């Protein structure tokens, strides 16, 4: 099997590796580089668990070949926390209970990160559209939307639950 030498920057760090043509970008990131934050869900572009940013744009890394990305800049969930401190977005997810089982979270964060580059104060509709390719099977979408609103200073104070007597 012919090997291809590729150089990529992942979360600001340069990597150089030999890959066979059929290696998916997802498996390259997880197995060759060892960054296992990015998850494999469906492997078919439906669930978005494998979402990473390539040159600033989100893609499903399961549906991409590593060899296609020679020279690219890739961002994954591992690029979020700095020196042991969560990013503002991660903190907002934490604070708003937007993480349940956590499997969708790395991909969800990447889709939201991409949204915030274009719309720093997104509307609820824009948030929903941005995460339409990311499935959350714990069904915490409400909390995820609120986390994004919180991270962008738009979360209205939640109404106290009224006691029903």
């Amino acid at each position: 099997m012919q090997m291809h030498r590729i150089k990529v920057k992942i979360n600001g760090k340069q990597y150089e590796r030999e890959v066979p043509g059929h290696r998916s970008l997802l498996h390259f990131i997880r197995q060759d580089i060892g960054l296992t934050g990015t998850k494999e869900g469906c492997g078919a572009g439906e669930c978005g668990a494998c979402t990473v940013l390539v040159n600033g744009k989100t893609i499903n890394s399961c549906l991409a070949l590593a060899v296609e990305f020679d020279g690219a800049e890739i961002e994954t969930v591992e690029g979020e926390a700095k020196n042991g401190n969560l990013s503002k977005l991660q903190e907002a997810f934490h604070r708003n209970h937007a993480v349940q089982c956590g499997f969708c979270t790395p991909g969800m964060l990447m889709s939201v990160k991409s949204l915030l580059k274009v719309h720093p104060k997104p509307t609820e509709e824009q948030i929903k559209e941005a995460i339409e390719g990311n499935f959350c099977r714990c069904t915490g979408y409400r909390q995820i939307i609120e986390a994004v609103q919180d991270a962008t200073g738009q979360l209205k104070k939640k109404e106290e639950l009224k006691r029903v007597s």
Partner: protein
Amino acid sequence: MHHEFEYIAPRSRTELLATLKKFGSRAKLLAGGTDLLVDIRVGHSVPEAVIDVKYIDEYCKIRWSAEEGLSIGATVTCVDLMGDKTVRAKFALLAEAAGHIGSPQLRNRATIAGNLCTASPCADMGCSLLAYGASIELASEKKTRIIPLEQFFTGVKKTQRQPDEVVQRIIVPAAMAGARGAMEKLKRIKGHDLAVVSVAMVKTAKTLRVGIGSCAPTPIVLKELPASASVKAVVDEALRTVKPIDDIRASKEYRLAMVQSFVEKLMATLK
């Protein structure tokens, strides 16, 4: 990917066509990969080689000329099309249709030509480009040919493309620039989903063209009608032409009802 294959990325059109001739049906062409890599993963496709067409400069361009019309290169993605100023100004329905495809992640990679080459009956670009009367340009080492899009589709996931041919671009006639267009797509959920039924309508001063998806083995187009056609005439023509089936997403009867409903709605929109 479980199946192993060679990856080849030709740097010129000449090299690409020679590689295609060498491998023929043993190779698959790669643009956005959002359909191909799923097919390979599930074993529907077992190519010896995957040929990446993204390094051919001329394929990544969207061009407009008053003589020929709009030319959409083979590797233009949904997001490229959605963001293009000429497309938005002159062929707004195409930008809208591209926005109906998949999710943001998929639209960043998936190409317009790839959507046509996959030739799914529900192809979102299929019914809209058919409504615009688009043609498609195919090239092999032997010759380059341009055929109307309705002839390109030959069956479920089948096209006229030969194993040694590559789709180079899609051409939308200049006469359709500025035509009013609208589309309706029925999905099971509000997020990304394949069309249960889709109808795209394009109206010029003289003509009315209607493309329909998920209601026949391929996306289809009704015979061209006069712009003055009555709602009833268009509905009748649509119901005569479609051949929907029962499947996992909907029944035949529901599809027929939705075709009628969408045609009526779009006729009102484009009144």
